[in-house]
């Protein structure tokens, strides 16, 4: 039976894969953002597990930074989605190809 921090690492891997597939397979921008949040949380979980395994505080400090950045990202991201929806009447990612090369 692995220890609790080890279980946290495995769980964070699972969460990250779920988030990654969510980003890759979803077409709706909002769901894609949700999946990105899941991936960020997976990363946070990995930081915390690692810091409890090494008995240091570094991981937990970084986690706070990540949460702050994630909150900003969610705010800016949602604002972008709203203005995109105003311009194109859609939040489907396949419709938004205006930067195509």
């Amino acid at each position, binding site marked *: 039976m692995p220890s609790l921090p080890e279980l946290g690492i495995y769980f964070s891997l699972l969460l990250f894969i779920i988030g*990654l597939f969510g980003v*890759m397979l979803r077409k709706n921008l909002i769901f*894609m953002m949700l999946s990105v949040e899941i991936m960020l949380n997976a990363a946070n979980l990995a930081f915390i597990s690692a810091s409890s395994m090494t008995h240091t505080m570094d991981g937990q400090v970084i986690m706070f930074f990540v949460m702050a950045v994630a909150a900003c990202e969610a705010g800016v991201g949602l604002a972008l989605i709203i203005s995109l929806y105003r311009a194109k009447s859609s939040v489907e*990612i*396949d419709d938004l*190809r*205006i930067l*195509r*090369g």
Partner: protein
Amino acid sequence: MQEQTLLTLIVLLPLLGALINAFVLRFANVGVVCTVATFVVALPFVFSLMLFFGSVSEGTAVTVDLFNWISVPLINGKEFNIPFALTADRLSGIFLLVITGVGSLIHLYSGEYMVHEKNPYRFFVYLNLFIVSMLLLVLGSNMLVTFLGWEGVGVCSYLLIGYWYEDKDNSMAAIKAFIANRVGDAGFLIAMFLCYMLFKTINYSELAAIIAASPQTFLADHSIQITLIGLCLLLGVAGKSAQIPLYTWLPDAMAGPTPVSALIHAATMVTSGIYLMNRVSYMLVLSPTVMTTIAIVGAATAILSATIGFAQTDIKKVLAYSTCSQLGYMVLACGVGAFQYGVSHVVTHAFFKACLFLGAGSVIHAMHHEQDIRKMGGLLKKMPITSVTFIIATLAIIGFPGFSGFFSKDAILAAAWSGPFGNPIFWFVGWITAGFTAFYMLRLTWLVFFGTCRAEHPEHIHETNIVITLPLVLLAALSILGGLIAIPEVFTGKTDFITQFLSPVLGQAQSVMNAAGFHGVHLSHTMEFGLMGASVLIVLVGALFAISVYKNGPQGGDKFAKAFGPIYHLVRDKWRVDEFYELILIRPLAKFGRILHSFIDKTIIEGVVNGIPETLYTGTSVASDAQTGMARNYLKFIFISVFIFGLILFI
């Protein structure tokens, strides 16, 4: 100096005429164009006369060295030089007169014949260029200048046969003539190279001097090379002079305008083979094999094309086959060692054949482009001048006593029996051919000019104007008088004119033949009269037979067609030689070409050429997938690259 200038002008004037017509008078009317074109050939004719009756007929050759044409330094420190030099001696003098004389008459005639053409200037430019090439051919003092003219006449012949290039048949005929000539030209080229290898020169006078210095050496030690050179030259001659195996282009060449048939395919270009054989006669006589081959080719062509003449119904085709046949006589004359009689027949033939062709042109013109002799008849009353001149020329070509063809042909027949390489068999073939010629020529004349008119609108047919009839009358007069140059010894008691006249040129060949022991047999006067009588007899038989068969029109021949069934069809289809060539040469070559096309071209060459851009295209299309603008694609790349990067990092 004076004569050198004349000689240069003779070549330059027609060239100038061609340039003026091509660039200045493009849109002038036919009268102006024709006047210029005729003038630049008629003036050289006057110059040729001056030159001819000046020093050339005295026996002095006039040479002019225009410029150094080709100059290549060789490895051994020497230099390979080909000067662009012209020489007029007695042999080229005769050809000079025929080319410019008959040429200017035909230019004059063309002015009327081509009057309804849209762009007549094109026709006259080609004609003038042809005259330039032909003059270079006979005046060149080395083989390369001759070859330049030799190719030039080929090109002009191609352009003129295909003058009405919008018609596919005409274009095909032009291509056929061009290709058959190329085959012959390859022979001439190889002969020229071999000549340079063996003698280290291709200048005619130097060649003659080298051979004259030691004929025995070349007879004994170099017989294989000499034979090879001779046979390659013969191939060239066969191409230009329409001999077996390359004769099939000449009848098809009749697709061109009639003045072209008269000038190129009867009077001048096709005789260049005879000129060449005379020019290098001292070399040909070194090899009995070559001489016999030449004689056989000539005799075979003479009789084969005469038989084809029996069943042709196109007035120009009959004349074309008769040209092949008469050229066969000339080649036979050269082959048996009587080169000068080849030349005399060239001269008389130029007169009467040009007259026949121009007469045929006059008939075709009057009949509104009808060429089928079965639809003619009774033209004697409607077109008296054309008819009488045509009949005179016919009598000349069949060798009717007193006309020019009689003397020149009789000289050849006598030489075929008694010449240094002669043989009674050659005489016999020539004799039979004379009968055949009389038959098909009288068939032609009778169907066209006698009997009842079978045209649809006989009332429209009338004599053409003076521009057409004047050349006819002049040529008919020459067809009677031209024989004077070959009146045999038996009538005058002295050697005939042409033999005497050409002896400075042909003496070399004569002395080689004497040295090698080829003397020929001496014909007694009784024998000679006997041969002459036999010729006259067979000519009369042939002629009367033709008249009796065709006296009621073309259906007279149907009885023969029935009686000879398969043979008649074979003759009418020209012995199916074209089909034979098609089967053994053209189709395999075409098939080979298709294999090359599908394998080498498509697979290898196009594979490489198309393969490079295709690979690049595939590569770039993969790269351009990274630029779709689809977020999920970008993610895919990010994920894959991170995965790969991770693998690299951890393994």
